[in-house]
């Protein structure tokens, strides 16, 4: 009797992968057989095995982004069978295991398809647009060493917890990939809400939301039409309530800045 591991039967699948040599180049799907896989193998480990075989033959391995392999760094970014991060809810691609697939299945693996995230090679896209949005206002300006005692301003636990819910975003971009308009509202609203909920974030609350949204628009992300595919694909289940919160903040900030008669631009400029 085997005392451990519940699924023991190995499976074989075919992986249909998007191969594209470089940015702007034509791409195509290529099939790779993956045989006799332990169901407890992760999806990325399955790709490792295929790649080892390709490298052994001197063929170009499948390029895919990954790092922590535990769902926190936000690097992995596969679209598996049409879904960003694959079939399971609330996890990243790297936390997908082969037991989620059935023997004999053909699994389609693609990069994110969204204009602001151009493909760099195979399954890797360029998500630097997210960094640029962050640079436009995703911070609280506090010089190192200028802070007062950490307990000087108590923050109600519920507020801190809600800020933490928003702060959990891993910047993976699945929300953008899942949205038919390639909107980045979920990502942006998570940061805007985290900082806007906290007392430390109040002084820059208006400029932050105005500048981040302006940058988002400038970089070609689409608008939100309330379909909420984003939060369904989000590995951290960031709630779309934050989008509503950001919209309120944005309106209020636009109103106030119109009254001040000053364009709300970040003195630091863009990226």
């Amino acid at each position: 009797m085997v005392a451990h591991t519940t699924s023991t039967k190995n499976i074989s699948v075919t992986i249909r992968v998007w191969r594209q040599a470089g940015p702007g180049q034509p791409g195509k799907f290529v099939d790779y057989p993956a045989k006799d896989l332990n169901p407890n193998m992760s999806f990325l480990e399955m790709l490792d095995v295929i790649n080892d075989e390709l490298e052994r033959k001197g063929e170009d391995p499948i390029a895919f982004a990954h790092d922590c392999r535990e769902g926190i760094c936000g690097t992995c970014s596969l679209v598996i069978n049409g879904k960003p991060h694959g079939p399971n809810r609330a996890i990243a691609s790297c936390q997908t295991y082969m037991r989620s697939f059935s023997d004999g299945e053909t699994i389609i693996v693609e990069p994110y398809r969204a204009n602001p995230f151009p493909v760099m090679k195979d399954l890797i896209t360029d998500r630097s647009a997210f960094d640029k949005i962050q640079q436009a206002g995703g911070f609280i300006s506090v010089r190192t060493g200028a802070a007062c005692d950490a307990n000087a301003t108590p923050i109600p636990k519920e507020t801190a917890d809600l800020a933490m819910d928003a702060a959990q975003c891993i910047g993976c971009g699945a929300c953008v990939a899942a949205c038919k308009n390639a909107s980045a509202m979920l990502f942006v609203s998570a940061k805007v809400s985290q900082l806007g909920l906290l007392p430390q974030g109040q002084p820059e609350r208006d400029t932050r939301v105005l500048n981040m949204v302006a940058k988002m628009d400038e970089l070609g992300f689409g608008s939100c039409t309330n379909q909420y595919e984003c939060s369904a694909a989000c590995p951290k289940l960031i709630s779309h309530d934050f989008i509503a919160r950001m919209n309120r903040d944005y309106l209020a900030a636009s109103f106030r800045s119109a009254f001040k008669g000053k364009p709300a631009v970040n003195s630091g400029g863009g990226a």
Partner: protein
Amino acid sequence: MAQLNSRIPSGPLADKWRKHKTEIKLVNPANKRKYKVIVVGAGLAGASASATLAELGYQVETFVFHDSPRRAHSIAAQGGVNAAKNYQNDGDSVHRLFYDTIKGGDYRAREANVHRLAEVSVNIIDQCVAQGVPFAREYGGLLANRSFGGAQVSRTFYARGQTGQQLLLGAYSALSKMVGAGAVKLHVNAEMLDLVLVDGQAKGIIVRDLVTGAITRHAADAVILGTGGYGNVFNLSTYARGSNATAIWRAYKRGACFANPCYTQIHPTCIPVSGDYQSKLTLMSESLRNDGRIWVPKKKEDCEKLAADIPEEDRDYYLERLYPSFGNLAPRDVSSRAAKRVCDEGRGVGPGKLGVYLDFADAIKRLGEPAVRERYGNLFDIYHEITNENAYKTPMRIYPAVHYTMGGLWVDYNLMSNIPGLFVLGEANFSDHGANRLGASALMQGLADGYFVVPYTIGDYLAGIKPGSRPSPDAAEFKAAEQHVRDLNNRLLNAKGKEPVNYYHKKLGKIMWDYCGMARTKEGLEKALVELPKLREEFWAGVNVPGSGDTLNQALERAGRLADFIELGELMCRDALTREESCGGHFREEYQYPDGECKRDDENFGHVAAWEFQGEGKPPLRNVEPLNYEFTKMSVRSYK
């Protein structure tokens, strides 16, 4: 022979840092903008340093191999960050944090550095809260703390199980602000492949753009490395797959001393290996040990049985038996070795019998399942996701895994290496944890180095340099270093052997784990020192790196990093062999007390070993920096 002047300020322990700050040279504010500083890495250490130096007015250029600074491996830290705030009024103080860190490090760290770390720990929390880091709070709105990794006070600040993520995103936001303001020039997908020395001083780096393959030269007045730890030498570890030693290793080959490379930390509670395809080991938070009980069957023949079929009297709760006062909370190195011992006796459980049980049955009985779910629900979920097992019903299986490297480039009190102008921060240096790191102290050190130490101490070096004297990246030294990098890459690309990079990485991992892992022997290390040079040759002759160097080529990235890991592995074994004692994470079977505890030899090994490269094919030189314990007494660490 390298000059190792630790530059520890004189005077009473608690005054050293304050005094040093008033005595070191300052750079005139108007001159700061004339100096350029290169920072490699944007983990906690690199991001905090980049942001702070830019705020001070220096020109900063930051390089990361990741596609965004937010992806640095610091993001994965779970448990928390220590600080001597004493918010819980439980008797904590700077001195107590200092003392715990020194003792935890098994008396192999510098007193002065550790005291400074404890002092600035309090500023870190202030800084992070001001940045909007959503630390856990109590109902009254004040910051919550927990006791972590066996500490007897509650000094650990945390943000759910994602403390590293939140601290890194805080530092990333500070960095982003400065990038947006044009004060930091950020290079992503940019891997440093060599350090450039001009007249013996660090003046720049050679970088490969991982997307286009372009190799470029970058000059500066000083170079800072915050490039993280080297645990992936072992192939399987809790590190991110991309974490690597290339930056520090190539700096070592340019003359920077590598201190205590053999000091590695093995974390006791990780999910065991399930097959040879495995690419990484996942850490399960140590907090599980607060309520879980660790055991293995008393009898070997029971190991194949289901846990539920093994009656209470046939279970060996070995940590509770061996360490009655600390029990399941014994320190990391102690618990890890105990797990290895019982598995070596053939009493391990699970695939390959490399696992021990972490059992919550008693906790569920005592507290009820909802309370256990409330405390550890997310960890039970992670466990389920990876193993497909339900830990509410059957015990978890855990096994130790490589988790942290205390060794790193040698630095003085200013965090400058023996190469003038080369500063090293965070896990990449060796400075503060001695032979073993306490839980929640790496995050503290990374941020201390980056926010509160190097921004001052770098001035001491820069003030001695004429503004505008920075060499041009077209200088001969830069061109030679660039050529060196190209040659190395071409050698890898032209090997056209038969095996993928991973094949050799697995082999390296096995040698290191077997001979330089949790327990080391003279015999084993000598064997490794025969096998590793062989592996190195096999690798260079047999690796197959498809494609070319002028495109995105992940196989080439991995190959270059592995080439360095193989060499570093050799140095680790050499260091482990020559350190004829056991201390902290370095356990030599020959040197132990009858109860299996580390037997230190303070007289002969109460020092830092700082290895110096002597040229290819030549044995490195072992330099020594004596550790003078002026304020604490080196005593036997006991957790009985």
